[in-house]
């Protein structure tokens, strides 16, 4: 082996190439377009334009509102479900978990189209409640991503800790509030990340349910289809930074928690 000059690092070359071609290069291109004008000259106009145009800022706020609302609704529905599934002694638990996960196996467009029909049947005209419908659509779509991580964390939760809390005088409510919730934090955080980020940018739901382009993802799309690559890139870049900050923040919390949990197991 040695004489052929093979080293283990060589195995990394394909991945490095992949990263350069499909991650680093596109990012550089976006960066280039975001900070140049149509003639290829450096400018900050796109950045200033983003934060001064009521259209882009409005869309950003609206997207954030949708993402926050969706995440909250998913959390409120998802936690009790995950808790019941993980902590109760009911039989056929896995079947029920599967039922919640199964919609993920069905084609996304098909699901949303079906939902659209159902909502139209209920509301008559979807245009009356665009915000509500978007939340319903996104919740329907992302709920499994919220349930699964919380379910796995709650499943691993050591039952003797709950007994210990009760033993020390905690009522069932305080056991839940002081032990179960803090210990399921890693699951909650990953669930929130998994739902918040895609609901910030996903525009298919909105597009299909309300024919609206009033969300970040579709805004970028509309700029690019109008051949305004510079402004489109800047929106993408701003979004990237927001997501990066959010991820870094939650990640730090997440690893801290699982780190403690992991050390407990060892």
């Amino acid at each position, binding site marked *: 082996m040695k004489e052929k000059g093979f080293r283990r690092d060589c195995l990394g070359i394909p991945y490095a190439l992949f990263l350069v071609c499909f991650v680093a290069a596109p990012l550089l291109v976006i960066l280039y377009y975001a900070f140049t004008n149509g003639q290829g000259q450096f400018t900050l106009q796109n950045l200033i334009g983003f934060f001064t145009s009521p259209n882009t800022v409005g869309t950003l706020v609206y997207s954030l509102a949708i993402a926050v609302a969706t995440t909250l609704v998913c959390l409120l529905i998802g936690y009790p479900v995950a808790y019941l599934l993980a902590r109760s002694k009911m039989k056929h638990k896995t079947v029920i978990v599967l039922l919640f996960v199964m919609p993920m196996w069905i084609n996304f467009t098909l699901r949303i189209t079906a939902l659209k029909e159902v909502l139209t049947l209920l509301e008559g005209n979807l245009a009356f409640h665009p915000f509500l419908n978007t939340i319903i659509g996104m919740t329907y779509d992302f709920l499994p991503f919220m349930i699964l991580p919380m379910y796995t964390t709650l499943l691993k939760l050591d039952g*003797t800790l709950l007994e210990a809390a009760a033993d020390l005088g905690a009522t069932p409510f305080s056991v839940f509030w002081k*032990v179960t919730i803090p210990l399921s934090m890693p699951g909650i955080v990953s669930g929130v990340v998994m739902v918040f980020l895609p609901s910030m940018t996903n525009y298919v739901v909105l597009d299909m349910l309300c024919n609206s382009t009033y969300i970040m993802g579709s805004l970028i799309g509309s700029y690019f289809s109008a051949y305004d690559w510079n402004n489109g890139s800047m929106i993408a870049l701003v979004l990237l930074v927001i997501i990066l900050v959010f991820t870094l923040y939650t990640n730090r919390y997440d690893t801290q928690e699982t780190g*403690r949990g992991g050390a407990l197991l060892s």
Partner: protein
Amino acid sequence: MRTDTQKGEFAMQQTNDNIIELRNITKTFEDGFEAVKDFNLTVKRGEFVTFLGPSGCGKTTTLRMIAGFDTPSQGQILLNGKEIENLPPNKRPINTVFQRYALFPHLNVYDNIAFGLKLKKLPKSEINKKVNKALEMVDLEGFEERKIATLSGGQQQRIAIARALVNEPEILLLDEPLGALDLKMRKEMQLELKNMHEKLGITFIYVTHDQEEALTMSDKIVVMSEGQTQQVGTPEDIYNEPKNAFVADFIGESNIFGGIMTGDKLVRFCGADFKCLDEVEQGTMIDAVVRPEDIVITEPQKGMITGKVISQVFKGVHYEITVMSGKNEIVIQTTKKAKVGEQVGLVIEPDGIHVMLAEHTLNKIESGFDTNGSLSFMDGRLGINITSILPGIRKEEEGLYVDSHGDEIDISKLKVTISIRPNDIQMSDDKEAGQLQGHIINLIYKGDHYSYVVRTVDDFDIIVDDEDLWNMDDFVSLILDEQKMQFTLKK
């Protein structure tokens, strides 16, 4: 603090002294497993009581019922004379130290210990004082801010004890708290716990499978096996006067020999007569327990029995020597060396012999008859018919039997006890060889043979004597000698 007036009120004293009382406690789990059967116990205030037994004997389940994590299927638990069996754990003045500590990983040391106090809504300064005192007690001052994951097993253990004791419970329950520690640490903690118990005066109920731990720490030991109490007594009682072969075998090393009383305080085992201190009627079958340290090796002509040394192992303080005398294997602990192959004499003083009434000398199985008149035990596979048990009975027609006087007999109401001696049953690993199959659930060495308990697939416990060594949980087939079976009818 007993005053003279209190001494006079005897009945009052009784209820005051017993902090907790378990009456006829039975616990059957949802899957039908009976973990605890008809368990009775009284614990005095301030006592250190240990539940001792092999894993699966129901000791932890009993503890969990006292703590309130499990409710008994039957029976009562009285705390200071009041029934508490339906009270949730948070309403009982009892705290637990868990086997794997169960410290909260999301809280630091201080918050772990303060958990119970904060729930009681005590003022901050008082919580602070109590937590500091608790940390001082377990010798971990300055650890307040530490994360649980950064502590060693021994430190976690101490925090767990501090967390329980800081609430000043009336009873402290400890579920094998030292099981995860290494030997040296365990010995240290044993003494520390004992000291804490003496200093605090709180009632301790301790669960362990380690007999040495139980003997070292307890005021009272409850030896348990298969959900039932085998013996309750002081460590000395349990060690010196074991009630049955199980206790003798479980507590410390012991030689158990099957034998018979041959005269007044005279017992015969290993082919010789020995003087003993126990008065048992002549002719009674007994089990004699002799502790390895109570046997003295001398020259062959001076010994009460003789034998050949077959092995010698150095154990630090003493040698463990195995002597074969006839068919009996005898284990001896002595500080003197012996030579393997050497012929030696053995002397056992009367106070070294403990005589127990032999139990399990007969297997008794209750059964009835099916409509064909066959014994319904084992679905009639035994092939024994009512006509061979009840003399004079005739079969008139299907399901109708008539006795010698011509009276009709309802055979479905007849009950019969099948008795067979343990040595009339053979074990085989050929599944087809015997009438019954089952797993070995218990074995005790009795000098020249092993006494096994086999639990059959139909859930009968059968005692079998066999010279060969089988392993626990072996699946064996039992060959019952039908000629040696005895049948007694009950009406």
